[in-house]
């Protein structure tokens, strides 16, 4: 069985112009929504107090709000989490109570009101820790891109390196844009997922580049555009199947992994699509437009000292 067979070459680069337009729109759109709606930062980044309560029966959110309001937790945000029996409550800081004790207090109130209320989890993150994490996260992403730039330059060529990094930045920006426009919570696990998307998308890109390099060396007197088309066609089966199997397991995570892992799975699911698309269009296109050529990719011949002279003996 084979998804794409036959000996014809798909002319991917024919669509390079529309693809470039599409990507530009998506990236600009992402920037716009990130500027307007911003990201729905999770507790890990903003700091604050959050508790998870499990009830025996369906939780009555209004009643919970009323119970909390009666004890001056007016601005508590109460919502379902994972199932109708579980609620997630975000508490605002209050004068006179240490922020680290806020959660304990709220749990005590809810337990008093309904004895079936069970503390499933609680988190308190101080604002300073949240700020640090935001800084660290951004830094991690930048260092990641930089290291990749260096490695790919070393193994391939700077045009490819730039192509792959632009593609990665493209993936990250659009994934963040999606989280922004849908208002999905961006927590630590989502950050990990975004970084995993970088890893995955890169994997894809490298495989394509590897083939492009090989074909440049093997096939003579052919336009770079054709070489790239040939390479993309040759790797198309692999790209589709690997994306497919990864998507399979991600769907398993998305549907079975539970609420804690939902954001993670969402970011990765979307990232895999974008990553696959970007390694076909963005990465190769950038390398092509930067003028990658056969000469740049020939293995460097190491000149041995005295190799041009006749042997003495």
């Amino acid at each position, binding site marked *: 069985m084979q998804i794409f067979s036959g000996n014809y070459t798909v002319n991917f680069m024919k669509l390079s112009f529309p693809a470039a337009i599409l990507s530009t729109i998506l990236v600009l759109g992402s920037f716009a929504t990130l500027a307007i709606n911003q990201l729905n930062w999770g507790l890990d980044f903003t700091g604050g107090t959050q508790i998870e309560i499990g009830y025996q029966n369906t939780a009555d959110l209004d009643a919970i709000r009323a119970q909390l309001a009666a004890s001056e937790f007016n601005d508590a945000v109460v919502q379902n989490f994972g199932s109708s029996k579980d609620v997630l409550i975000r508490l605002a800081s209050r004068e006179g109570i240490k922020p680290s004790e806020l959660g304990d207090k709220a749990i005590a109130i809810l337990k008093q009101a309904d004895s079936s209320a069970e503390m499933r989890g609680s988190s308190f993150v*101080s604002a300073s820790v949240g700020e640090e994490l935001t800084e660290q996260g951004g830094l991690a992403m930048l260092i990641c891109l930089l290291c*990749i730039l260096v490695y790919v330059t070393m193994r391939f060529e700077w045009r490819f390196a730039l192509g792959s990094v632009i593609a990665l930045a493209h993936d990250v920006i659009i994934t963040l844009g999606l989280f922004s426009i849908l208002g999905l919570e961006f927590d630590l*696990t989502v950050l990990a997922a975004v970084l995993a998307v970088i890893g995955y998308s890169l994997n894809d890109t490298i495989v394509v580049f590897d083939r492009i390099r090989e074909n440049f060396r093997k096939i003579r007197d052919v336009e770079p555009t054709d070489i790239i088309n040939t390479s993309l066609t040759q790797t198309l089966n692999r790209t589709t199947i690997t994306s497919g199997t990864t998507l399979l*397991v991600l769907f398993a995570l998305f549907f079975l992994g*539970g609420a804690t892992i939902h954001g993670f799975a969402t970011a990765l699911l979307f990232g895999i699509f974008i990553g696959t698309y970007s390694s076909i269009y963005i990465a190769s296109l950038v390398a092509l437009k930067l003028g990658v050529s056969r000469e740049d990719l020939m293995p460097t011949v190491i000149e041995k000292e005295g190799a041009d002279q006749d042997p003495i003996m």
Partner: protein
Amino acid sequence: MLNQTPLWKYIIIAVVIGLCTLYASPNLYGEDHAVQISAGRNAVVDEQLVEKVSADLAAASIESKSIVLENEQILVRLLDADTQLRARESLEKSLGENYYVAMNLAPDTPEWLSALGGEPMKLGLDLRGGVHFLMEVDMNSALEKTLKDSDNDFRTALREEDIRYRTIKQVENGLEIYFRDQDTLDKAEFFLKNRNRDFVFSEKSDLVLFATMSEQKLLETRDYAVKQNITIIRNRVNQLGVAEPVVQKQGPDRIVVQLPGIQDTAKAKEILNATATLEYREVDIEHDVSDAIAGRVPPGSELLNYEGRGPQLLKKAIIVEGSHIIDATSGVDQNGMPKVSIKLDSQGGAKMLAFTKRAVGKPMAVVFIEYKATGERDAAGKLIFEAKRTVISVATINGVFGNQFETTGLDSPKEAQNLALLLRAGALIAPIQIIEERTVGPSLGKENIKLGKEAIIAGFMLVLVFMVIYYKKFGFVANIALSLNLVMMVGIMSMIPGATLTLPGMAGIVLTVGMAVDANVLIFERIREEVADGRSPQQAIHFGYDSAFSTILDANITTFIAGLILFAVGTGPIKGFSITLMIGIATSMFTAIVVTRAIVNAWWGGKRLTKLSI
């Protein structure tokens, strides 16, 4: 001939996989409910205690699976959660407060396996439930205190040297010493520079000498403040009866505390925040101890228990309080006997000097005051703490001393260490603040494990089915590799001592399953291409593996870089995810390239083939 794997390669593969399987196998066994008994101060866990424990349990008619003494702890395995609870309660009562009794889940690893170092994977707090605290030491107040001590110290030193100064002011980052004339300033600068090597002196402006702590001293002060807090927290965590607690330094001024299995965070926080102090007091030798025990305690004195040595009669007046202790370290004196060296601040030193001048030859005692939770709560729901005073040392004053002295005549280096530890615990500590707290209830932890397992199994099955349909017999080979990959990951995770499995870590495993097939997909697609190009099946296998190798290597190295950065920068859950990701990349390279090649060669290598099942 093409496609032959040498025997040594088969042997290496067998050994690697065998080892990983061996170390993965402890995860198949369940866990026993257990209680763990460890010694508090001045108590030992020995064979005698094992006998006592088994007698006590028998008396309470609690059946136990086994009672083992190990690493100075006794582990009692029990039948179920209910007997575990009962055993803990009855042992707590019968052993008294010198021992800590904690509930635990002990892995039911067979003896021969644990003898080889086999252990199941450690689960993160999100999977087993518990509390995680991140605390920050208030460095400003620690540094301020050090400056204040130096302020007093400088004043005394300058006065003794007859160098006149106008005043000393404590400012940010240092001390300003004001003088009336340049000559005195120069003299003072020369004197102080030689005397206090841990300070840096500079002339700030006219007639003002500025003293600031050297980098070294700053570092030491910070380090000490954190270490002191860690010591104290460790002590208190024992009181909570937690098995396998983690108390660790993180970064320059932070402490991570992880308490698996604790659910009452409010109680945990109160106990961790409880303070301890100590007092140096004079022993009352004018009155008779036995009289006092009989009930005739003289006014101005009180009876306090000296652990292991009976009651002592001490005067109520305090010589020096623990807040004046700057440092206490254990060591050996010139005769090789254990000792504890104590350093007081200048104020404490002055008091001690005044006292010892008139008390040479008399005994002096150290009283340790702990605030222990009584288990009851007041009207506001706060835990009630009770001050518990015990004598931890009695020593004869051998001479006049001030802010530096030594306690000798201790029985063992261990006793010296204990005393130093308690002295530090009773000293004034830099305040700490909780800056992050995460609690996961036990039900959520169990649910997380269940969901994680289900997702892994489902994802795994889907991929297996797909591969067999798409690549037929070669797909079957890839599936063997994929299964081995999972076993190897679990085995390696179990082998690495610091690795813990978290929920994001489980997600990492799932993701690796999806990505691990990539190497095989690359190889198989190559083989198909070679076949399409008209090569013979054997040649196609040979060239397929060869030309796919560098691609796989490049692709995996770049992903590995991403994993490494995640590990270096991330904390907690991100670290868990990156560890599984990196291990997965390494194992999948091995299984997908080396192992599948070996199987393919064994299956088809050297045979006359006309067609490949791919």
